[in-house]
């Protein structure tokens, strides 16, 4: 091997290492960029999915009331239209998996039919809850990215808030159902109440939660507000009279 080849090797090997390192840096930078762009697009999807969850939660409550003997189907119908509008916006985002969108649409139709068939309110709530849980899982999948940014942190915190909100909705739904039927609490319902409350508190008190100051203040105001206290009182009432029932004279859970 002559000197020129040796020198070429001497220069070429670090140059090649530099090229590989640069390529890796570019790849990482590009991945960060792609993650940032994905996160940006996920933010819109997250927004639509949050609205959809919010609408489905409303629809779940109204449908459960209707299924339990209510007569204001027009209110249910109106909510379903609102939900459909949001669903259309959600599905129309374009970056959502077609299968998921189709499955969610089919589930919504199926649970609505259950409502029309006047099936058991618990079953309707459970179906809505599973549907909302699927959307929450979808939301969680949006936060699974390699990039670590403020936006992702906010998104994760928002996911916790969404989960707390859903748990709170389920807690209220179960509580309302118990109070409205004024019957002793079944063991499964008792466990559900405990679990949902624990989830609400765990998510809201999570140390990784990272929200804007206004949002934190709003949550704190909510937890310190009368509605929250009434809910706590109602839960305490249910727990204390779980075996006997007869809650109607004491308290009524706040409808969200």
């Amino acid at each position, binding site marked *: 091997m002559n*000197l*020129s080849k040796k020198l070429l090797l001497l220069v*070429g090997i670090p140059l090649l290492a530099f090229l590989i390192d640069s390529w890796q*840096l570019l790849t990482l*930078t590009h991945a960060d*960029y792609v993650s940032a*762009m994905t996160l*940006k697009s996920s933010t819109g999807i*997250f927004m639509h999915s949050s609205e959809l969850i919010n609408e489905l939660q409303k629809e779940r409550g109204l449908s459960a009331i209707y299924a339990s003997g209510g007569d204001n189907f027009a209110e249910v119908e109106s909510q379903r239209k609102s939900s459909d509008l949001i669903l259309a916006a959600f599905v129309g985002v374009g970056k959502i998996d077609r299968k998921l969108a189709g499955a969610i649409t089919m589930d919504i139709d199926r649970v609505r039919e259950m409502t029309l068939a006047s099936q058991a309110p618990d079953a309707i709530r459970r179906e809505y809850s599973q549907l909302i849980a699927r959307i929450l899982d979808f939301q969680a999948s949006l936060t699974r990215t390699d990039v670590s940014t403020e*936006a992702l942190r906010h998104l994760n915190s928002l996911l916790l808030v969404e989960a707390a909100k859903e748990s709170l909705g389920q807690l209220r739904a179960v509580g309302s159902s118990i109070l409205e039927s004024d019957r002793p609490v079944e063991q499964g319902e008792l466990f559900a109440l405990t679990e949902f409350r624990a989830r609400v508190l765990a998510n809201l008190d999570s140390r990784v939660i990272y929200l804007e100051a206004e949002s934190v203040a709003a949550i704190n105001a909510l937890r310190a507000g009368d509605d929250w206290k009434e809910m706590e009182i109602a839960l305490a009432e249910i727990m204390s009279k779980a075996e006997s029932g007869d809650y109607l004279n004491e308290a009524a859970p706040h409808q969200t």
Partner: protein
Amino acid sequence: MRPPLIKRELAVIAKEADEAADMGINDLLSSILLTAGALLITIFASIRLLNGILQPVGMVVRLAEDVCAGNLSNRLPVNSSDEIGRMADALNRMSDELEQKARLAEKIAGGDLTVNFSLASEKDTLGIALRSMVENLNDLINSIREGAALLENMSVQIADSSQALSQGASESAASLEEISSTMVEIDAQTSTTAQNTDEARKIADQTMSASKSGTENMADMTQAVSSIHDSGKQITRIVKIIEDIAFQTNLLSLNAAVEAARAGRHGKGFAVVAEEVRKLSGRSAAAAKEAAEMVSNSNSNIERGAQVAGVTAKALGEIENGSIKTAGLLSEIAAASKEQAAGVSQVAIGLSQIDQVTQQNSAYAEETAAAAEELTGQVKNLREIVSKFIVATGKQEEADPHITSGGLASDPIKWGKELMIGINKIDSQHRRLVILANDLYHALREGQASSALQPILEELADYTRTHFSYEEQLMQQSGYPDFVSHKAAHTKLVQKLEDIFQGFKANRSGIGIETFNFIKDWLPSHIMRTDKKYVSHLQSRGVV
């Protein structure tokens, strides 16, 4: 918990995501730009760096290959003071040194051994080797010159000696041929003598046999004579018996006659017979008497014959003894003659061999003479070749204090050009004298014993005489006008040396450094002032 919270948070998130995306694109672009820039700079710098190394190194390699191929004329441009620049400068200086040494080597090859050069450093192996080579060549050429001069003289002497030897061998061969022919004659005569002696020995043997036979016959004859003598005595006794018988017969015839007479006529016949018997007895008696006489005479003769036979037998015995001695002597003479003949033959053979050897010696001597003449010619050629070399003197000696072309640096008399007169043989002799004088100096300085000084002094004196004799011979041959005064100077120095040497030998005077100082003053002065005067004269006369 109301949607506005989520909307607010989502708005914040969207803003942050936009910022992250903007930052990401900015980071990506800046990374691409930085990487591309760094890559370009690195490639450009690498190319410059490689060119900056490879080009000068390539030039260095080409120069080194040129130097390897013997081309020392190329040089490298020195454009920097870094390692490559220093290497180029060092290679240029190396080429300069090599070129300088190559030029010196060319001079040496051209025969100039007076070259002088400085070493690049103490570790300049090539320079040291060249210097050593020059010094050794100086020594070698000087030695060859001396040796050639001596060889020339010796070859001439060998040629003369060989011719003389050849001539002597021829004469010896002629003498040997004469001796050989004489020896052949002697050989023939000796052979004849041996043959004659052998025949004489044979005759002596025959004589000895004859005398022995005669002695034996004489003994037989003596015996026969003795027997005859005995027979004579018996015959005498028989004759006496016969006489007695004749007497008795006579008596009987008488008696018969008586009787016959008595018988008358009847006895007449008987008487006649008796008469006849008486007559017969008478004749028998007479015959017996004559026989007795004859026997007596015969006995006398036989006795005398026996005596003569005895004497003859004795003489024959002496003859036999003499014959035996003669035969023995002749046998010895014959053996000696044979041995002499064999010796003469061997001498002849030896002479023949000597003759052959002599003839061979003669041939060898002729060949040796021819070879010596050829050697003389070759020596002349050698001297012509060696004369092309210009030998260094003092400068070279100064260059190395240990080894010089003429001797040691500590020699008080330096042999050099100033002491050379241009006549090789005389220069060689002068150099020999200088060496001997320096040897004497060193021996004196080292305080060597008289036993060590004596051979030096002796050789110095002898060689001085030899040299002066040669010079004087040349001057005399050429009719040198200043010959007398020159010879006088020679004689004076020889006498001085002789006195020193004799005084030293007789232990009458020691040798001091002043003796050497005298030689040291005299020798160079004589060579440079006196000897150089005759050079042109000798050369003009063609004696050298």
